[in-house]
């Protein structure tokens, strides 16, 4: 039997990009820090768009350590959510409309998060990528890297544990 024709590329891109945009733009704190996400296939890169209000040390100047931690945590949570929701986005069960309004869709909750500060964050854009070391039914372990001009020279790295959203209990 012939396999069904693949979906047109525009349909696939539109569905995935709309869901990702809704997921990211729906969170006020992500908008406050002006973090956006680039998607290449299933790989997400967080982008921290520099602004003077992110400065923590006006003398150097350098990005606030708390902003760096927040950027890495946002990248970890969005990457984990994306991975977790992806099958339901592909099946059409959740879309850009429902992703931030549907009460049954929850974000993974941070249990702990540890940040290593390797260099000071320069007053320009920063990038981050999260790697899911393990994602089980209840817990996930994630590692995140952040860099600025040169990907080989990380300015921060982090690792953390997350509690995954639990499916609603079957009452029958």
């Amino acid at each position, binding site marked *: 039997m012939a396999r069904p024709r693949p979906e047109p590329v525009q349909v696939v891109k539109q569905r995935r990009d709309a869901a990702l945009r809704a997921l990211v733009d729906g969170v006020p704190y992500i908008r406050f820090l002006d973090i956006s996400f680039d998607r290449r296939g299933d790989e997400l890169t967080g982008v921290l768009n520099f602004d003077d209000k992110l400065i923590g040390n006006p003398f150097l100047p350098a990005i606030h350590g708390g902003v760096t931690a927040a950027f890495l945590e946002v990248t970890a949570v969005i990457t984990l959510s994306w991975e977790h929701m992806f099958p339901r986005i592909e099946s059409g069960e959740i879309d850009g409309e429902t992703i931030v309004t549907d009460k049954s869709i929850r974000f993974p909750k941070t249990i*702990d998060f*540890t940040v290593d*500060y390797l260099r000071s964050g320069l007053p320009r854009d920063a990038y981050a990528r999260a790697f899911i070391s393990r994602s089980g039914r209840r817990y996930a372990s994630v590692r995140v890297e952040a860099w600025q001009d040169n990907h080989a020279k990380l300015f921060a790295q982090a690792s953390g544990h997350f509690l995954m959203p639990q499916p609603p209990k079957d009452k029958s």
Partner: protein
Amino acid sequence: MVDKTVLARQFIEAIPHARALNLTLTHIGEGEAEITLPYNEDLIGDPRTGVIHGGAISTILDTCCGAAVMSHPSAPGGTATIDLRIDYMRAATPGQTITARATCYHITRNVAFVRATAVDIDKDLPVATAAGSFTVEGN
């Protein structure tokens, strides 16, 4: 003598990102610091619940730890975070001010060790705790 608390408050409150979050230094001295973060809808991490994002909690804890290091009698000057671990105990109650309290419990010529706790109105049940090491600069 100029009040060290006033100087420290001006210093912390001059940090652009501390201003963006409306952080207020409420206590400082002898390796201890207390900072408050008022509730702000821009900091919401989950639009369904209105709970503040963990990243904002990290920022107040990091700032508070840095202030505690700088206020230590043996600290000659500035500081930078080497590493910071945060444990999230529970969601902060929407609408409530977060208060972070940090103690620099040990300091050497090069490194300062700090612990901190963040609470909301319920002071007995921490929202988050932090433990970190910081550089000691200006020797």
